[in-house]
């Protein structure tokens, strides 16, 4: 399986040195689960997305990178340093948002950010204020009275402050409203433009697609594949429902490029399309329709495509 693919990363970034290097890493938990035989290397300037269902092992990998937990076997190097022996030096150069972010409830964001700016090596407050302003974060209300979105903004500022070389973001947008999600995407893109490295996890393909250049697919603790995000999106079928004023011809999409399956129930035509959508849209535009919906496939369907047609 293509676990060591060093495909070119997102356009524009300079391919630099290797920032994250995992070799045959395994971590087993007493109650079961964990990850096994993970090998992966991530270049400087990449935005790497880790995609997989909940419980697949995404958080385990991020916690291993941070030395919060230790592997049973294998080696982890970050910036060429040992994840355990040199953890303090590594942590000096990275920012992190935990998956289930918890903040010191009794303090205000101003107090929490002051604390983390000090712990992260004395980051000047003046360099933090642009981030606070960009996210429009209220910093003098106690955290316990804040919404989930605002809390996540506090975590975001705490991670992004001081312009770290590497950002580890564990499901950074999970459970947030679209506006805040957009703000986070924006920050990640800005970081990528500056040639810094981002490692993020998600269970939503479209979200990873918005931010990442390469994607690692993880399921049941195993890295199933590492793909360029554009290839991945091309590979993943779109699910199309077209509603016509009257029952359509079963062969309506017969000759259209990219259509994998199509079937008719009543006035509705269901189809699966991979690759370019334009031929399909052109075909539909030639007639009158009542409704059209295009859905992204679920993760399960995506993973299945890797099992059905093993990647060389």
């Amino acid at each position, binding site marked *: 399986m293509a676990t060591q693919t060093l495909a070119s990363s997102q356009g524009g970034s300079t391919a630099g040195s290797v920032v994250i290097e995992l070799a045959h890493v395994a971590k087993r938990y007493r109650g079961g689960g964990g990850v096994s035989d993970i090998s992966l290397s991530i270049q400087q300037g990449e935005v790497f997305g880790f995609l997989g269902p909940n419980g697949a092992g995404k958080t385990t990998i991020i*916690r291993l990178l941070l030395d919060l937990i230790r592997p049973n076997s294998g080696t982890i190097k970050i910036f060429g340093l040992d994840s355990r022996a040199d953890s303090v030096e590594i942590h*000096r150069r990275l920012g992190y948002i935990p998956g289930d972010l918890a903040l*010191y409830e009794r303090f205000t964001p101003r107090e929490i950010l002051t*604390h983390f700016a000090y712990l992260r090596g004395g980051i000047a407050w003046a360099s933090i204020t642009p981030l606070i302003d960009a996210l429009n974060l209220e910093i003098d209300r106690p955290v316990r009275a804040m919404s989930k979105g605002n809390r996540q903004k506090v975590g975001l500022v705490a991670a992004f402050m001081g312009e770290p070389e590497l950002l580890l973001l564990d499901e950074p947008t999970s459970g947030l409203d679209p506006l805040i999600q957009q703000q986070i995407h924006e920050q990640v893109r800005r970081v990528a433009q500056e040639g810094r490295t981002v490692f993020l996890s998600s269970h939503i393909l479209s979200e990873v697609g918005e931010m990442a250049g390469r994607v690692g697919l993880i399921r049941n603790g195993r890295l199933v594949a590492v793909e360029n995000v554009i290839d991945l999106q091309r590979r993943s079928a779109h699910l199309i429902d077209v509603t016509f004023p009257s029952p359509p011809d079963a062969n309506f999409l017969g000759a259209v490029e990219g259509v994998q399956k199509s079937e008719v129930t009543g006035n509705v035509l269901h189809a699966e399309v991979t690759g370019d959508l334009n031929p399909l849209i052109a075909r539909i535009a030639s007639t009158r329709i009542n409704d059209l919906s295009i859905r992204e496939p679920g993760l399960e369907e995506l993973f299945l495509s890797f099992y059905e047609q093993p990647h060389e």
Partner: protein
Amino acid sequence: MNRSRASRGLHTIFERSLREIRRSLAGWMAGIAAYCLVLLAMYPSIHGNKDFSKLLDVFPEAMRKLFNLSDYTTGAGYLRTEVFSFIAPLLLAIFAILWGADLTAGEEERRTIDALLATPVSRRRVILEKWLALCSATVLLSVVLELVLGLIGPLFRLHVGWAPLSAVVAGSCLFALSFGTMAMTVGAGTGSRGLARGVTGALAVATYLISTLAQLVDWLKPWEWTSLWYHAFGSDPLTNSFNVGHLSVLVACIVVLVVLATMLFDRRDFSN
């Protein structure tokens, strides 16, 4: 609103830990001071009262030893019985055990430890700063105890002298800190606040029982030295002042526990 300024006095883990409990710490200080004041206010009516001495004679000896009842009518005897036989060391120890467990296991249970350990601060330093915070708060409560008794006592004709008073307060403080550190250590090793508090609380009670029952039960006497309570109060500090040997045992115990805590914390897997 002024966004251009950092918050003041909230930098190190030490500062943040103390800031987190400042209200509760103020409550503990007020409570300890109030308890001492009430007892001091009652002292003039007991001082030199022969009837009280006789009252004490009525108790069987076993009971007097069990509850550390001693000559009630002198200042030292009054403090020994009313303050240092049980209540003051107990209050300090409860505070230290509750907070010690919270400093390690509590932060883990609230999951704020993830972001904390991802900063460039070694685990060893995290533990040491937290322990220093525990020390400072326990010493602060002890100082309140000492100052209220030492400064306000004489107003109620209770004089014991600073040296014996300091010796018994030091014993209480080190006793509390031993168990507070133990709670911190169990918390660092297990991540469970309940376990840390339960185990340590039970041991604190056991050490008190060994020490007091040894006065009554002959076969327990050779085991008295295993009790930290004995090392804190066994040499009757209110009469004999400081006993460096005994207090050194408590200090050594604390040092060993701190080393153990850093080792356990360093090896932990913080998964969830």
